[in-house]
């Protein structure tokens, strides 16, 4: 059995100033929204955050930005956030933009014990500056390094008390690879179930990667509500 929490503030209690956090989600889809809110309340500072995006002004990781809790962020796309722009221009926030596939593979590699890998993405661009390159079969590749974190914060649809996780639809996104890449993985689940209730053939994140679990209710805000034209 893993540590099962009933309060989000208890679940994030061990996260201290200066920690590196890997945070699941794509846009606002599949983000561990209650864990993020608890970090805002706890007020931990000087965080390094690795996440595909950085929320919007008043939601998701945007809540931590607004409260000046983040020193550095690694992301592939951050265009949805005015406070983000202000802090970058003011020199308050350091940003490393990473091609999305490279970000995903750096996290996957981090969880899989692979220190670095070669990829074609970014060859001949600003991303390649200062990076080692190598030619394989006549084609140039960049060496990219794995990412690991002190804590992984993920959101799953179902989780059992051993820590097995199942994600729902495209709320899966970065969550499984992030669950594997952190030293301590905290899973916010929509439904906490007993062992045996999840089909072992359909587990996305096996329990071995998960340390702490908490069930919560999410708002699941929608960033771009688009409907069929009628």
């Amino acid at each position, binding site marked *: 059995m893993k540590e099962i929490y009933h309060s989000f503030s208890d679940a994030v209690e061990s996260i201290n100033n200066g920690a590196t956090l890997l945070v699941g989600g*794509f*846009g*606002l*889809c*599949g983000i561990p929204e209650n864990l993020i809110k608890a970090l805002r309340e706890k007020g931990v500072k000087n965080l390094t955050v690795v996440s*595909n995006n950085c929320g919007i002004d008043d939601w998701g990781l945007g809540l931590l930005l607004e409260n000046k809790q983040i020193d550095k962020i690694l*992301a*592939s*796309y*951050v*265009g*949805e956030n005015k406070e983000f*722009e202000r802090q*970058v*221009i003011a020199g308050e926030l350091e*940003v490393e*933009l990473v*091609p*999305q*596939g*490279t*970000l*995903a*593979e750096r*996290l*996957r590699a981090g969880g899989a014990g692979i220190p670095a890998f070669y*990829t*074609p*993405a*970014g*060859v*001949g*661009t*600003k*991303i390649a500056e200062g990076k080692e390159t190598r030619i394989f079969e006549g084609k140039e590749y960049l060496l990219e390094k794995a990412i690991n974190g002190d804590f992984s914060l993920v959101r799953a*649809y179902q989780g059992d008390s051993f820590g097995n996780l199942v*994600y*729902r*639809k*495209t*709320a*899966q*996104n*970065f*969550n*499984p*690879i992030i669950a594997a890449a952190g030293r301590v993985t905290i899973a916010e689940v929509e439904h906490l179930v007993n062992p045996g209730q999840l089909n072992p053939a359909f587990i*996305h994140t096996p329990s071995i990667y998960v340390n702490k679990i908490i069930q919560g209710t999410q708002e*699941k*805000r*929608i*960033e*771009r*509500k*688009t*409907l*069929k*034209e*009628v």
Partner: protein
Amino acid sequence: MSKDRKAMREMIARRAEKEIQDGNYVNLGIGMPTMVANYISENKQVMLQSENGLLGIGPYPTEEELDADLINAGKETVTAINGSAYFNSAESFAMIRGGNIDIAILGAMEVAENGDLANWMIPGKMIKGMGGAMDLVHGAQRVVIIMEHVNRDGGFKILKSCKLPLTGKAVVNRIITERAVIDITANGLKLIEILDKSSFEDIQSVTEPVLLNQTK
């Protein structure tokens, strides 16, 4: 957006649809490329990939179908077709880099005659990030750019060399604008089709590199 501009974008999207073959796996970029999905012929079976982790994007949802857990890479709510699959982001880019996407249709700020693409960053303006574009341009079997032929000031977007920071070097196969279809080849840019009433000289005058006239 003006009515004319909307009609022009629709025309480009309709022409881009002709690039998609029956049975193709296709990735459509954000913005005008996403519109191409509206015009895919019912005679073609096409699987649309969204790099956030969906193979088999369906139409936009009705109010009843709306689901916060089901979005495309532009963060728009979508549906999934019968026979679709969900997967994580590493898997998504493994299938992209692995060469399984037949065609990627993307937007651009600039394209150079050697196929260099710039579509993610304007120095001095807020940097939003490249998202998945840098991975896609190397993974897709064919990269087709759809864009307006010139920029808002009438300046060239098809250039001898890109001025803006690159997304990828020598990655573009074909450019489709409201005026022309142009292929990037080892021998230079080939004008394949004229889409309006322009002459070859008209198209050349809005295109910086020398064009080879291959129109029929």
